[in-house]
């Protein structure tokens, strides 16, 4: 199976690899997936307290090229967005942007789950209730 150029580009030059200080109240962390399934994503956002916008986003991913590309792309999209905007990022938009084949859709689902988990972590740290999301369809 050949990868799309965009997947290859994200794999070779991943954007925003790294770690934010998860003890800070302004940082939300989402850790999703499982080693047994062959992919684990950790996605972090840092929210600017004054503007309410996501000022930084970082990821680390254990997984195939599509999983790495999905999380790299997600961090790019998150930066500069408000939490409300970030919630609307849909896995199918990632699939379209990266031209993921059907067997790799689960990678985009994982990235969407990671975004939601990071947002809820941030909300709970700041005295807000966790948002309830519909169970994502996992492949």
């Amino acid at each position, binding site marked *: 199976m050949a990868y799309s150029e965009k997947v290859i580009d994200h794999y070779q030059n991943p954007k925003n690899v790294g770690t934010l200080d998860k003890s800070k109240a302004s940082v939300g962390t989402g850790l999703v997936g499982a*080693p047994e399934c062959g992919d*684990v994503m950790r996605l972090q956002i840092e929210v600017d307290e004054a503007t309410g916008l996501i000022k930084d986003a970082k990821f680390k991913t254990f*997984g195939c090229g599509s999983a790495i590309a999905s999380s790299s792309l997600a961090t790019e999209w998150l930066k500069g967005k408000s939490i409300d905007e970030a919630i609307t990022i849909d896995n199918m938009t990632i699939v379209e942007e990266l031209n993921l084949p059907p*067997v790799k859709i689960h990678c985009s689902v994982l990235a969407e789950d990671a975004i939601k988990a990071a947002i809820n972590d941030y909300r709970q740290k700041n005295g807000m209730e966790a948002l309830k999301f519909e169970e994502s369809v996992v492949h």
Partner: protein
Amino acid sequence: MLNFPIYLDHNATTPCDPRVVDAMIPYFTNNFGNAASRNHPFGWQAEEAVDYAREQVAKLIGADPKEIIFTSGATEADNLALKGVFEMYASKGNHIITCNIEHKAVLDTCKHIEKEGGEVTYLKVKDNGLVDLAELEAAIKPNTILIALMYANNEIGTVMPMKEISAIAKKHGVLVFSDAVQAVGKIPVDVNKDGIDLMAFTAHKMYGPKGVGALYVRRKNPRVKVTAQLDGGGHERGMRSGTLNVPGIVGFGKACEICMNEMEEETARVSKLRDKLQTELLKVEESYLNGDKEHKLPHVTNISFKHVEGEGLLMGFNKNIALSSGSACTSASLEPSYVLKALGLGDDLAHSSLRFGLGRFTTEEQIDYTVEQVTNTVNKLREMSPLWEMYKEGIDLDTIEWAHH
């Protein structure tokens, strides 16, 4: 100078040796006859070529030419051996013993036999990939007709103790079948010394063409028979009907002859390269060798690199190096290799494995390049692996509650 891509997946298939292709070419054009045409020179020529190839093939495994049944490949030979024995020896019993790291051509055929009323015991291999001989012997019952164990494993390259296995079988009057696809042509295989009654092997794993293989069926001590699985013209002494693939068989014969003549020299050269590759890659932190260290094929190694995923790892260099992984991120099930799991590897290590299969045309320069590329990619991916970061922070990954899919 390095030419890309480098091929290190010789367990999947091998290139045809140019000497094999040269031997085959006349049998596509001028000497195109049907080996079963008894009444004209075209047929005689083809028959003569097949007879000669049959001798070359038999010689490599220490058999008599009459004991070689040509097939379309090893999958067909596996099917013929298992189903053929199951049907032929139905009055004697219905129990077959095999193991859980066999090739799918054996495992799925055994599943089929179970549906037909057969009873199959799937021995669990030890964590080195070898069968426990005491367990094997204990599994033999009065209705056992066949022990089916692979000579060498396709993923980890471990070599089963065939002599010991067949000694146990003989003691209990049970036949031995071996899928020897990965072993024949690579290491000395002798059906008499090894005590094998039926054996499947194929040309394309030993620098011959695809689409031709053989089943060895013992004719003496004991005389073994299999029920044919294809009905037709009664070729191959009635055991495998179908017009013989003359060019393929000629190529198979030539491939066997070359393996026989060059095995010693080739093994010495390739195993040295394999050892270098293995030693260098095991220097990478948290890398693990899969399968037994000693009892293994000279050209194979299988290594897991903890906390990086196999398919992601391959992507780092698969434009330039052809390798395969025990990971199965592309399959719908996301299940990693059943062979690695059978060794007791956790899913994380099974997902992190690479299989290296060296071959006749592998060079030291290619190995050096591969070591460099794999090492660099492992390091790069670990920099972006959350598992590696946790491991480095001393977090026990087993204590984390993962959101399982």
